[in-house]
């Protein structure tokens, strides 16, 4: 379980994340949505110990993320950030193999090699495993980083806007991949998204953030309604039901 307790992040006078408390139990796919500047990425960065909170705590399976050993946490929690610029010239296989670092400390076993190959195949980059990252398109590089996260095999996988740079075909296959990850026993996927319909289609639970606070939390059918569109996303639109899923159709 990820247990976020009264966490706050301020930059100067601006409060980006304001006293947020959340629990994310094991299992399933959780989508965090909200308008730009709602504090979604900041929240994710604090959970993944990339930035420090001004107050409040985050525990992952009882481990305080600011105090627990990095290696312990890395086996429980993986994170893929929005910008994944890597200056080093590494091949896809090199990159994905480093996802195994928390398990092997840089000395790969046969099992690691197999897991790496599986992860690369999972994101559809098998033909490009020996290419350098700077020879890939933005979308391919994005998928290589997802494969690295897969190889890390953490119980909780966090993704910050993983669909950036992806066309709809790859966005959908990526979301299906996350769905499959979240359906494995004991695995939890938390994704920051900006597309409500993608969230509604693939997530079990949607957390809505606005101005640094959580303003909605529940199953897609409970959360997505006209009031949410008007008050949080400031668009007029209708909710349409397709195959039992509530989707958003914005007014032209």
């Amino acid at each position, binding site marked *: 379980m990820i247990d976020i307790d009264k966490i706050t992040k301020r930059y100067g006078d601006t409060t980006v994340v304001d006293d947020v408390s959340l629990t994310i139990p094991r299992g399933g796919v959780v989508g965090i949505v909200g308008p730009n500047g709602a504090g979604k990425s900041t929240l994710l960065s604090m959970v993944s110990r990339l930035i420090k909170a001004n107050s409040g705590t985050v525990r992952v399976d009882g481990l305080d993320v600011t105090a627990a050993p990095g290696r312990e946490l890395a086996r429980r929690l993986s994170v893929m950030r929005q910008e994944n610029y890597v*200056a080093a010239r590494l091949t896809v296989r090199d990159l994905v193999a480093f996802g195994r670092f928390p398990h092997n400390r840089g000395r790969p076993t046969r099992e690691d090699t197999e897991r790496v190959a599986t992860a690369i195949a999972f994101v559809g980059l098998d033909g490009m495993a020996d290419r350098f990252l700077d020879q890939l398109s933005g979308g391919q590089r994005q998928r290589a980083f997802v494969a690295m996260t897969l190889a890390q095999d953490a119980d909780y996988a966090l993704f910050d806007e993983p669909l950036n740079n992806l066309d709809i075909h790859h966005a959908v296959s990526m979301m299906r991949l996350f769905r499959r990850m979240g359906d494995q026993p004991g695995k939890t996927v938390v994704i920051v998204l900006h597309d409500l319909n993608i969230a509604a289609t693939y997530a079990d639970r949607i957390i809505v953030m606005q101005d640094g606070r959580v303003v909605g939390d529940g199953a897609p059918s409970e959360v997505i309604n006209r009031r949410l569109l008007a008050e949080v996303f400031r668009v007029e639109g209708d909710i349409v039901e397709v195959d039992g899923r509530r989707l958003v159709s914005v007014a032209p």
Partner: protein
Amino acid sequence: MNAFSRPLLLSAIVVATAVLVVASLVTGGGYGWSDVLTMEGDGALVLAASRVPRTLALLLSGAGLAVSGILMQMIARNRFVEPSTAGTVEAASLGILLTLLLMPGAPVIARMLVAALVALAGSGLFLMLLGRLPLGSALMVPLVGIMLGGIFEAVTSFLAYRFDLLQSLGAFGSGDFSIVLRGRYEFLWIIAGLVAAAYATAARFTILGMGEAVAIGVGLNYRRLIIFGLIIVSVVTAAVVVTVGAVPFVGLIVPNVVSLLLGDDLRRSLPVVAAGGALLVLASDIAGRLVIAPYEIPVGTIMGVVGSLGFLMLIFGRRSHAA
């Protein structure tokens, strides 16, 4: 794609280095190959007291400087950084001057330690500056380093001028291996240990080059690893500057060429970087002994010329990769 096979490249470098080692042993003012090989008269003495130490010093310094370069590039996440473009060399020189001023009778090892400490502080300051400056271009990073080095150099020159030490300053300004003699280079062997330490932690430094988020994400202690890397770089730089003086650009040229051929997984490339650095410095020193024989051009000067040309080629050739 790995167009180059690593074993092939590594063995080519090792063979070339072996040939140059022999050349280095039999090349130099006054005593040519016949004197040295027959071991007649002073030949044996020259070999044991001068040529062997000099050759070993060249190999150790070259390997250490090239490895320092690649470590700095991973730490700063910039292709154009190495000890001479990050203020490290100039800070080490300042450290040596301080030891001349404050503890004139100190043994060389004490000088080196003080130089290493000042170099560590200087490189740390460089990284802090990088963290605070809005850097629009990858080229800004070495420019900041060169300017910072310029400031250290100015302080060093000022102190040397005020305390009448300008002549001693000249001695470690430009790397010169002709001063290497038996009994005066041995602690360069510390470099062998530091290169081995870098190789043992090569996977970590590769991850460091992928940025703070990735490093923390896979469970590394980012800050501690940076400090560990800077300690290796500072001690290598200080050891070389104390013994022979500054040898610029080795850490820039060799890692960049190896990176183009093999990529940046240091577990694979670090041995090639170390061997390549040894080869480059050895070759430059032999060239310096031959160009105006029986006189010598210091290797620091040769590397200054070769290196700045190489630096320019890298800037024009790699700008697209380096953003």
